[in-house]
Structures are given as C-alpha cells and as structure tokens.
C-alpha cells in the first residue's frame, strides 16, 4: 500500500470505530465495545507504522506528501481541499497519539467496566482519537481548524462524561468555551495568513511566507500571536489554563489520554508545524517562549500545594507543556517534540497509576486521606516510582534526556534565552519536590482505611458516595462510582498497559541520546530543513554541565520531599505557617479563576441580565414597541377601530389578491 493509503487508514479506523460503537450502543454487550474500540486504535497505529516504513523508504527531499480526497470548500480566493499532509512531524504525532491511545483504550477496558456508559465511553474515545489524528494530519489551515475544534468537542464530551454530576458539566462547559476562544484565535490567525499569502494549503503558505513577509512584519506577528491564543488555550498555558485542573472531573483514562498525553500537546505541535511562520514573526515566538516559561513556574508552584491527586498531575502537565512550548517557540523543535513524546509516556503512566489508586480509594482523590498504599499496591507503586523518576528528570529515565535536551538547546542560543534556561532548572527542582510529595503522601506513612482494607484482601466500598467536588450525593444508578471499581493489581488489562508505558518511560530516551543516537533529529530533519536553528552545533561542555545540574536538582528535590513528608512529618505545616503569603497565593492557584470571573465572566453575565431585564423591558418593549402601539390605542376609539379594521381589510385584500392571481394565471394558461 502507498504512503497516502496508509495515512488515510490512520484516520479511517478510529472514525469507523466510533460510528460502529455509536450505532451499536444498544446491542453491544459485555466488553465487546472495549474490544472494538481498542482494535480500531491499534489498527490505526499499525497503519501509522506502515506509513512510517513507506515514508522512510523515500528520498529525504520528498518526505512531505500532500494527499487530497475531495474539494471541501472552494470560493473566491479560497481553495480548501479535504487534504492531509504526511511528513515526519505529522507522522511522529500520529505514532505517539495512536500508540498511547491504544494502551489507554486497553486500560479503559477494565477501568470503566462497571460504568453504564461503557459503549458511549469508547465511542467518544474513538471519536477523540479521530479528531486528534485529523488535527495532526491536516493539510491546510481550514482542516487544521476543524481538527482543532473537534478535539475540543471530544474533550468536552469526555470531561462531562459523568454528566449527572453538576461539577462535571460545569467543568465541561468551561473547557469548551475556553477552547472556543482558542478556536477563534486559530480562525482569525488563519484569515490573516490567507490574507497575506492567498493560500490555505500549509506547504504553499510556508513556501510563500518568506517572499511575502519580512522579519517581524506586523501582519505575520499578529497572525502568529492569534495562533498562539489557540495554542495556549488548547495547551493550558497561562492565562488560558484554568480549564485543565477542572477537566480532571473526567474519568481518569481521559485525563491520561486527552489532558496529558495528546490533546494538550496540540499547541506544541501547532507551533512546530507553523515554524516557518514563527521564525519570521520573532516577536510572537518570544511571547510564546516567555508564556511557556511563566506557565512552567506558575504551575509548578501550584503543584507543590494542591491536595487532589489528579490535580497535582494536571498542574504538572501544564508545567511540562510549558517546557515544550518554551522549546518550540525558541526554535528548539527536536527537543520540544522529544519531550512531548517522553512526557506522553510517563504522564499517561502516572495518570493510569493514579486511576488505580483512586480505584482503591473508591473515588476519593484527596491526598490528605491517602497513605500507606506501598505494600498493598506494588504494581501501582512501581509505576508511580518509574513515572515519578522520569518526570523528575533522574537519569537514565526518559524525561531526563528530553528535558535536558530542551534546556541545552536554549542555553546554546545564549542571550536572553539564559533566563529561560534558569527558569527551566528552577522548575525542575520544584517538579521533583511535588512529584515525590505526591508519591510519599499516597504510598508511604500509616496505611489509611482503604489501604488497610486492601491488605485484608478486599476492595474498599463506601456506604454512600459523595461527589468529592461539591459533596452532593452521587447517583450510583449510572454505574459510577459503582461497587465494582478496578485497580491495576487485579486487572491484567490495566497492569499490561501500565507495564508497557513503564518500559517506554524508562528507556524512551534512547532514541535521542546526545552524541550517540540522535535518531529523532535525523528523522525530523525533512520537516525542519528550512529552519536555521534546527540541528545547531551543540556545546558539549554546556551539555555535560546541564546534565549534572539536572540530575543533582532532581535528586535534591526528591531528598527535600523525603525530608518534609517522610522523615519529619509536620514540617510541611511549619513551612505553611512560615510562608503564609506564598502558600495562600499558591493554594488559591494564583487567583486566576477569580480574576477571570471578575474581568470576563461576571461582566458578561451582568450585561446579559441587564439586556434581558432592563433594556428589553424599557427600551425594546417600552419605547420602541409599546410606545407606538399605546399611542395608537389611547388616542381614540376611532383610531382603534381603524386599526383593527385596517388589519382585517389588509389581510382580506391580500387573500383576495392571491385568489385573483390564481384566477388570472389559470385564465392566462
């Protein structure tokens, strides 16, 4: 099969899967839906491998292939084909997305088994994978916006999956609306780019860009800043990030797949995809890099104090994506994408392991209530340790190499990038601390009631389930959180997928060992061959220093966490009291939700109420409508009869006219 056939199959399998599951939602019993959903994604992944083999057999200069199925929208100066662009970058994304998705589908087969919405879950999940693959394969700006919007929709559906919970529907609409703001950014950015180049096809746009715009041309700077709005909204970067922690309302596999490994990295992909434009719009690139750096620090500080297990990982995701955004904005594409890949492995792993813990806790996510799971959940614990070490950047785990690669790329460029370099290492220290704070609190210390119960050989069940978000009684009729929750230790499909990811998180770094393999850089070269920064000569001294600093900071962070939460319990309370002000700031998430509510949500709601209650009544119904009517009515009875008489006469005249018209036509014919 040809490269393009393979690539279209990559898209076709998940779509077909989702349609089959949707249509068959009533007839599919047992775990059939899980099997169908998982196989669809596995087939998509295998097609991706086929495409990879086919692509690598081509000469390097012809490794960017566009394939179009039909004309989507063609009018005026716009020529939109239903087309995909297959090149190393899009294919790397395809493999990461489809690969990790396959494992998460496998995990979900068991994890979501007791849920009444089992089929619906896999239908949504397949639809999400299709959307995400559409996004990364899109061959032109319009289809990119289509994929961009569709993943937002899929994400909304999955965040609100347990839609009987008001917290879930609120989180869903919040995520969706912020993502629509991002969509608007993409749309306006696309319009600006089309205005400049007259093209929608990505490769044509890239070819024309250098001829149309000079460096920092205001038009392309504006265009790229608009694209950044989209990237920041989707990738949960400050100040568009507030939806991501709330998105943890979704089932844990969703958090692993969409809100860690794939969708939230779309912004990174976008900047890398659009690199020919961002390289011209250097101001926009700098804004992106600074935004990433700010996010990585802000998110890490919140991660230090947050007490919800999944939200710790969510803030960590924000922070890690900050690294990637910083990298690709600064032109360090290879490293940014390398980190995207390793992060997908270890972050999905951490979420899956967290799901296992939450299973053991019967839905409870509060770290304050957890403890002592180490002995009773050895597989989960092991996965947490592997994922945690990779996240903290401890050699030889994958995260160590990718994070170091980013910071090396920044340091090599010198200048003000040193500030980003330092921010990266400060973030690295905090990362190690919050990661192991989470691990030590959940797995070490005195066993909690749930861990005790597990030690006695039974999974804990609560007598009544309350929504951890707002304390309302849960409707268990929909199957969640039901009596049959799952943990990795008792579900092979969960432990297998976690095991595979644990291996990848451990050894994933080998594809880009500095000085040794560099496989990823070589592979990506056809996409980035036009980039002057790609494959910049490496300063080996800096590399060695960076690696040492990275490893030391990671270990130091773990040591600090151990001292505070294991060796001397109570230290954290003392620190909180000592640094009350920063603690307040961090634990209130830097007040972003409050600021946005104050600046945007409340004014809009108030304006809506004002329009509805006051303007409609006083101006529209009163002055404009009732005024003339009441004048007419009040003047005299004569007027009144004239008015109603006229209405009748008017209506009658028209009907008579119509009748005459028919008659006339009949006579004419």
């Amino acid at each position, binding site marked *: 099969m040809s490269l393009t056939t393979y690539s279209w199959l990559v898209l076709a399998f998940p779509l077909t899967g989702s349609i089959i599951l949707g249509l068959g939602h009533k007839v599919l019993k047992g775990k059939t839906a899980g099997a169908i959903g998982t196989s669809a994604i596995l087939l998509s992944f295998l097609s991706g491998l086929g495409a990879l083999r086919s692509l690598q057999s081509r000469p390097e200069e012809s490794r960017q292939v566009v394939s179009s199925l039909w004309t989507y929208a063609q009018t005026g*100066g716009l020529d939109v084909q239903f087309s995909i662009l297959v090149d190393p970058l899009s294919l790397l994304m395809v493999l990461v997305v489809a690969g990790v998705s396959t494992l998460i589908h496998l995990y979900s087969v068991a994890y979501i088994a007791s849920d009444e919405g089992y089929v619906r879950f896999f239908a949504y999940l397949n639809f999400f994978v299709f959307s995400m693959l559409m996004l990364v394969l899109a061959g032109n700006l319009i289809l990119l916006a289509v994929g961009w919007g569709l993943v937002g929709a899929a994400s909304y559906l999955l965040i609100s999956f347990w*839609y009987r919970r008001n917290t879930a529907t609120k989180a869903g609409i919040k995520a969706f609306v912020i993502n629509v703001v991002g969509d608007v950014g993409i749309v306006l950015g696309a*319009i600006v780019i089309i205005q400049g180049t007259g093209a929608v096809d990505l490769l044509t746009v890239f070819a024309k860009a250098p001829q149309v715009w000079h460096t920092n041309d205001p038009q392309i700077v504006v265009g790229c800043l608009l694209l950044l709005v989209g990237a920041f909204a989707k990738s949960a970067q400050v100040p568009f990030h507030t939806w991501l922690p709330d998105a943890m309302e979704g089932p844990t596999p969703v958090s692993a797949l969409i809100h860690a490994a794939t969708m939230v990295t779309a912004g990174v992909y976008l900047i890398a995809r659009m690199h020919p434009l961002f390289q011209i719009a250097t101001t926009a690139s700098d804004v992106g890099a600074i935004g990433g750096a700010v996010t990585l620090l802000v998110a890490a500080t919140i991660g230090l104090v947050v007490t919800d297990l999944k939200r710790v990982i969510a803030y960590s995701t924000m922070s890690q994506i900050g690294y990637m955004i910083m990298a690709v904005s600064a032109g360090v594409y290879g490293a940014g994408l390398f980190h995207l890949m390793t992060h997908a492995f270890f972050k999905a792993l951490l979420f899956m392991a967290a799901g296992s813990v939450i299973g053991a806790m019967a839905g409870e996510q509060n770290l304050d209530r957890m403890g002592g799971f180490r002995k009773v959940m050895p597989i989960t614990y092991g996965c947490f340790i592997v994922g945690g070490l990779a996240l903290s950047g401890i050699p030889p785990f994958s995260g160590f190499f990718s994070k170091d690669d980013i910071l090396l790329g920044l340091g090599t460029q010198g200048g003000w990038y040193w500030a980003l370099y330092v921010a990266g290492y400060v973030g690295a220290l905090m990362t190690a601390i919050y990661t192991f704070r989470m691990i030590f609190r959940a797995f070490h210390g005195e066993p909690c009631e749930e861990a005790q119960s597990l030690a006695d050989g039974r999974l804990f069940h609560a007598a009544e389930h309350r929504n951890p978000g707002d304390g309302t009684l849960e409707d268990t009729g929909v199957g969640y959180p039901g009596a049959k929750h799952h943990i990795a230790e008792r579900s092979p499909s969960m432990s297998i997928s976690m095991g595979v990811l644990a291996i990848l998180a451990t050894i994933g770094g080998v594809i880009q060992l500095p000085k040794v393999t560099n496989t990823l850089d070589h592979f990506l070269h056809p996409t980035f061959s036009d980039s002057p920064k790609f494959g910049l000569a490496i300063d080996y001294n800096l590399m060695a220093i960076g690696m040492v600093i990275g490893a030391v900071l990671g270990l130091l962070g773990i040591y600090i966490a151990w001292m505070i939460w294991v060796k001397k319990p109570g230290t954290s309370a003392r620190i909180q009291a000592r640094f009350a002000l920063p603690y307040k700031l961090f634990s209130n998430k830097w007040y972003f939700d409050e600021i946005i509510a104050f600046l945007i949500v409340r004014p809009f709601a108030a304006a*809506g109420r004002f329009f509805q209650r006051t303007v409609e009544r006083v101006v*529209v119904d009163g002055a404009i409508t009732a005024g003339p009517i009441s004048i007419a009515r009040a003047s005299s009875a004569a007027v009144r009869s004239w008015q109603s008489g006229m209405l009748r006469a008017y209506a009658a005249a028209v009907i008579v006219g119509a009748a005459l018209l028919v008659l006339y036509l009949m006579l004419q014919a």
Partner: protein
Amino acid sequence: MELTLLLLLPLATGLLGAVLGNRLVKPLAVLGGLGTLGLAVGLALNYDTALGGSQFTVDKLWVKPLGIHWALTIDGLNLALVVLTAFVYASVVVACALREQENPRLFYFHLGLGASAVLGAFLAQDLILFVLFFDLMLVPFYFLVGQWGTGDRVGATTKMVIYTLAGSLLMLAAAVATGALTASHHGQHVDFLISNLQRLPLGKGTQQWVFLCFAAAFLVKMPAVPLHGWLKDAYKSMPLPVLALFSGVLSKVAAYGFLKLALPLFPDAAASFQDLLLGIGVLSIVYGSALAFTTNDARLVVGYSSIAQLGFILIGIFSLTSDGAQGALLQMVNHGIVTVALVLIVGVLASRAKGSEDLGSMGGIAMGAPVLAVVFLIAAFANLAMPASANFVGEFLILKGVFDSVTVVAVIACLGVAMAAVYMLRAYIRAMHGPDTNGVEQRDLSLREALPILPAIALILALALSPQPLLKRSEGPATAAVIPAAKAANIDPIQTATAAQGKR
C-alpha cells in the same frame, strides 16, 4: 412553467384539502410538501451549473399598465434557498401531520399559503412581485398565531402586525418609487423587472431613502436589534412546527432581499450605509447572544440565537465582499436546517418535561434518551458553528469577508462565536444533563418524533462533509451581487493576496 407549478403547489394542495374536507387534508398536505420538495430537488439537479445564470425562467407581462411582470427564475443565488424552503416545508408538514391539529383544513391552507409566498419571494424577478409575496407571506402567520397559538395571542399578533405593517408599507412605497423614479429619470416606460432596474441606477440621493425603506422592512423581518420587539411574543405563541417554518425560512427572505435587491439596485446607498448595517449586525450578534444565555425558555434560546445568527449573515452581506456574501448565503441554508431541528427538538423536550419549555424544569434525560441526546448535540454543535460543520465554513467565510473589509467588526463579531458556545451548551446541559431532579420522563425519541427531525440531522452531517456543492453554484451570482456596492464603497470584493499586498 415548472416554477409556477413549484410556487403554487403548496397553496394548491392546501386549498384542495380545505375544500375536500377533514379526511383528505392531511394526506394532501403531506403530498404537497413532499411534491414540492421533489420538484425543487429535481430543479436543482437539472440546473446546469456549468452554464450558470438564470434558468427555467418564466416572464410574462402581468399588469400591463403598471409594468408588473410575472417573472420567476432560478439562479445560483436562490437555488439553495428554494430547495431549503421546500425541505423545511416538507419537514414541517410531516411534523404537523404526526400530531393532532384543531381545525386542520384552515391550518394546512395557511401553512401552504405561507410556503407558496416564501417560494414566490425567492423566485420573483419583478420588484413588485417580490413585494407582494413578501407581504403575502405574513398573512397566514397572523392567522396561525391568532387561531392556533398559545399564550398571549392577541398581544403577539398586534405586535407582529404593527411592526411588519410599518416595514411593508415603507417597502411598498419604496418599490413603487423605484420603478416610477427610474422611469422618469431615464425617460422610459414604467417597468419593475429587477434586471432592468439594475441597469438604470437611480441618483445617489434617491437611492438613500429608498434603500432605507427596504432596509427597514428587511431588518424587521430578520429581525435585527433593535427592531426585534415582536419576536418574543410571536415565538412564544406560535405552534412549534409553524415556528420551524417561520424561523427556518421567513427570516432568510429578508436576508436574501438585501443580496437580491438592496445591494444591486441601490449600490451607492448600500455603500454609504455600510457602517450602519455592519453596526446593526454586530449589535444583533452580541445582544442576541446575551439574551440567549440569560433566558430560561428553550424556545427563546432558539429565537435569540436566530437574532445573533442573522446578525452574522447581515455583516457577511455588508462586508461587500464575495467571501462575505458567499458565507452569508451558505449560513442562511445552514441556519434554516439547524433551526428546524432545534425547534422540533424543543417540542420533544417539552413533551418529556410535562409540557414545560422552561429549561429549569428539564434535565437529566440524556441517560434515558441517548438518541435524543446525540441528535440534539449535533444540532447544537452545528448551531454554534462547530468546526467541521458547514456552519463553520459559512461563519469562516463571513468572518474572512468582514475581516478583509472592516477588520474591527470581525473582531467584535468573534465575541459572538464564543457566546454562541456558551448559550448553546448551557441550554444543552440544562436540558439533557445534570441530576434528574425534575422527574422528567426518561423516554427516547419515538419514530413519530424522529421522522421530521432526522432528515435535518442527516443534511447537517452531509453538508459538514462537503459544503462545496452549495458554494459552487452561488459563487458567481453572490459576487455579482456585491460588486456594484463594493465599487461604490471602494472595497475589493474579491480579496486576493496580491490585492492585500498592493494596499500596504
């Protein structure tokens, strides 16, 4: 002749049913609806796209002393709208036939009259003929609200009459003036053929007041803010299937009127009032959206959303660009289809919530009604112009046209894009999700309910896969419609990269 048949078929079947009695009225009406749809689709398939231009033309001098022609035609501008009207009419007739109706003979007669009038307005190529049909199409709806409506029928009818009468009379006067003044200005016989009038433009001063009269009638009909005072009561009291026809196609006649008449006949005036109409459009978008996310009435969410969506259509047209007009035309069709689905879904939701259309009395039904949940979701996503829907393509083209023409308007209009997400999802969540605290009836869509809704959903999905068939046919005429006004306003109607480069 085909067009005269198409135009008269709904009316004729309605009339026949009214005459032949209660037993035959339903079958005849359904036959009329499906026949109209079949005829319209047949015409669309036989329309030679490669040739383009006006086809199936009928042109007879009708009232000789006044120079009024019975002139009908199909061209790229009205083709899709004619099919849309036939489609909506067919869906509505089917929906009506599946429920009990008081006094069905008169009911279906009025419905058919309404559909014929709308078709006539879309097909008319004579200015007076257009005005006649435009006024005629309101008459059956006065009666439909007055007799079959609920709630404050009298108030609703009064408001509708006052508003639309004012607009209609202005338009009638303006139309007569256009013909008379053109004749005297150029020393010819009075003639109302639109194509003839277009060749002989009026002086700029005259154009301006005539344009404003037409604009007033169209803006009331759409409706645009602040001329929407009649909408709330009329929407509230109209029977739901009637509302689907009303909201689905009548507002489009007004928007179409701008493209068909106001821009080509009065280009200088359109250019000088461009900012005013863009302002009204943007106001409608923001204000309509704000009303839509503060109302608890499911029906009014659809109504206020229409104000916002027609605001988008208005700014698309008055961007005076080819893309904007194309987007506006596409969006008229999309909005018509989506509205039919949404209005009928409101009916289904209300039937599950003890007849209440208040969002506060709904909720938690998705679990028991998964098909309804999916159908509503598709319609809701299309209405908020979710990327991948044809509505997105329409909105994109509108925004692009406006961005190229008057950038700041496009930026403000983007607020409407985000607000649409808020009001549509808010309505969806409150109707479908959340805990089942109101004890709604957990019953999925029945076949009877699904029959008129599913075709609309299928059409939404089909257009999502390829909006191109619509765009292809309307490209030429849409561009031609804006060119005179664009020239007068000094705007390049077909924005190209080179043009944009040249300007800088």
